[in-house]
């Protein structure tokens, strides 16, 4: 068990810079999820940590040890691949034992560890089968077993669940989480699936075009996205991003034909043009009519519904604000709206996100 430290990793493939100074420290026993769109360099980063690829510059430490120049096998890591990469001609038992055998581990210990792993993963009855005689989920477990028996310092997962059907994926996600809790082994899990990222990791790292956009607990990343990219990437349906202006005293933001008070005054950004982020699920219909509070709902947005998606549990309504900007609102499934309706929509000031339109960074009140 050990922490994994990645420092200023740069990777060029020819002229293309795939990773641009990526740094992250994964604590002992922590599971870090790396999330990002296709081609952003997730696998490349993982493979550099594994030693399957060499970085152009930068360091990888596993525990206290600098491992830049070590072969994968010497790094004391185990990797679970997207397509499992089981040895087709070996039985499940041999697949799990192969790494240990190469390390010169004594037979009785190998047998004991394989038996243990098989028990944990429910593979005990399948030990003598060949991979092709197993279902996708079982193969996935064997791949996990192969990693577990090594008792490595860190597990590396490269989209290990993407070949499973939806139901199995939920189950395996749960199993990986359980297993990681039990073994307390440091883990790095690459995925482009948001749900996996939100549910699996202790921390989440969002990667975009080789740059780390944000590292934080999943809920923190969701609730306080550090950049426009993260804001748009995390959450489904995606966050609404609208043009707006902060007023002169930095207490309100004007957009879509209305003013909304800010949760925290942003005096240092007073008068600026900003991007305003609103999550569809944070928008709700204003309580209408006489029962409403004395104020006419302050700063309600007036949305003209253009089309709706009925998802059962939710209704997603797409429409336009008075100034023509497009917004998406997520309403409860039993909420009946129709194309052409006008909806007065409100949200809590705390759920308002503001970003610098040029740099994309989150605007915060700086005390």
């Amino acid at each position, binding site marked *: 068990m050990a922490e994994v430290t990645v420092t200023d990793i740069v990777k060029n493939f020819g002229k293309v810079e795939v990773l641009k100074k990526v740094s992250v420290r994964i604590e002992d026993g922590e599971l870090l999820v790396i999330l990002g769109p296709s081609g952003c360099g997730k696998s490349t980063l993982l493979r550099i940590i594994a030693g*399957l690829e060499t970085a152009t510059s930068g360091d990888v430490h596993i525990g206290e040890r600098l491992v830049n120049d070590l072969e994968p*096998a010497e790094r004391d890591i185990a990797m679970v*691949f997207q397509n499992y990469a089981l*040895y087709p001609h070996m039985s499940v038992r041999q697949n799990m034992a*192969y790494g240990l055998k190469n*390390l010169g581990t004594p037979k009785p210990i190998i047998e004991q560890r394989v038996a243990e792993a098989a028990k944990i993963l429910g593979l005990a009855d399948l030990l003598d089968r060949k991979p*092709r005689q197993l279902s996708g989920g079982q193969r996935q477990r064997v791949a996990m077993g192969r990693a577990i028996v090594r008792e490595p310092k860190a597990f590396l997962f490269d989209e290990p669940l993407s070949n499973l059907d939806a139901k199995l994926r939920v189950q395996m996600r749960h199993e990986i989480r359980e297993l990681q809790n039990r073994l307390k082994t440091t883990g790095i899990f690459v995925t482009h699936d948001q749900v996996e990222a939100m549910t699996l990791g202790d921390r989440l790292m969002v990667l975009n075009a080789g740059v780390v956009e944000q590292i934080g607990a999943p809920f923190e990343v969701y609730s306080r996205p550090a950049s426009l990219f993260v804001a748009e990437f995390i959450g489904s349906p995606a966050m609404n991003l609208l043009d707006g202006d902060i007023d002169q005293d930095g207490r309100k933001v004007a957009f879509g034909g209305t003013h909304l008070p800010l949760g925290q005054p942003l005096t240092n950004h007073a008068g600026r043009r900003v991007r305003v982020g609103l999550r569809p699920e944070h928008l709700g219909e204003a309580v209408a009519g006489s029962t409403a509070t004395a104020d006419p709902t302050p700063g309600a947005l007036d949305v003209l519904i253009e089309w709706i998606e009925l998802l059962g549990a939710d209704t997603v309504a797409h429409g336009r604000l008075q100034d023509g900007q497009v917004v998406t609102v997520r309403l409860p499934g039993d909420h009946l709206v129709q194309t052409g309706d006008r909806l007065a929509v409100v949200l809590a000031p705390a759920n308002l996100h503001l970003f610098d339109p040029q740099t994309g960074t989150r605007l915060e009140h700086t005390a």
Partner: protein
Amino acid sequence: MVENRPLFMVFVHLTLILGVLIVALPIYVTFVASTQAPGDVLRAPIPMTMGDQLAHNYSAVLGTGLERASSGPVAPMMLNSFIMAMGIAIGKIAISLLSAFAIVYFRFPGRMLAFWTIFITLMLPVEVRILPTYEVMAQLKLLNTYTGLILPLIASATATFLFRQFFMTVPDELVEAARVDGAGPMKFFWDILLPLSRTNIAALFVILFIYGWNQYLWPLLITTDESMYTIVMAIQRMVVAAENEPEWHFITAVAVLALIPPVLVVVFMQRLFVKGLVDTEK
């Protein structure tokens, strides 16, 4: 395509039976001829039923040799042929496995040049380069040796190419998994690549064994010592034996004998062979 109309089935079977007959008839005629007494073979209607000289003819060719054709016994020649065929088949497989391994898995300077050089030799069959090869073998004093019979035929562009194609279908992830599991290059080769190539090797072995067994021109050139003759060249020598009428009842017996080992190899390897042709276990 699955067709179940009875008429179609009859047609299919008739076609197949016809094919078998066309292939089998000459072999049958040869076999029948090899059981006849001298002279009976050439009598007007070709004999179509077994003669009574089976034991006599075969023991004569195998054991004592043919005096009139001035040819020794065939049994040692079969052994020579067998050694040559095995040597060629195993040697070709070993060398092409290794060279394909090098070309696919290692990045070394001149890698593509090496590959294309090997590939180009596909255009140069044994016959084209036979004289220089002979010269080399003579210089190395390898005439009339097994090494001389086997070595020049071992390099194989075809087999190298086939293994290269197969290795390229082995997923990269498997190679990487092996690296993570601590398998160095040769360990990966032995523990993973070789077992995965099993069926391909078997299929290739059959083909190459027959190729080696049927070699004619090269053994004819390089062997002058009767103890090194191979059976295929012996057949030819018996047919053209000086001044004498060819003894067809003996020659056909030798031909039948020459047929047996390749057939046995096919029969024994068939299970693996067919598997190697139809599926790749990945």
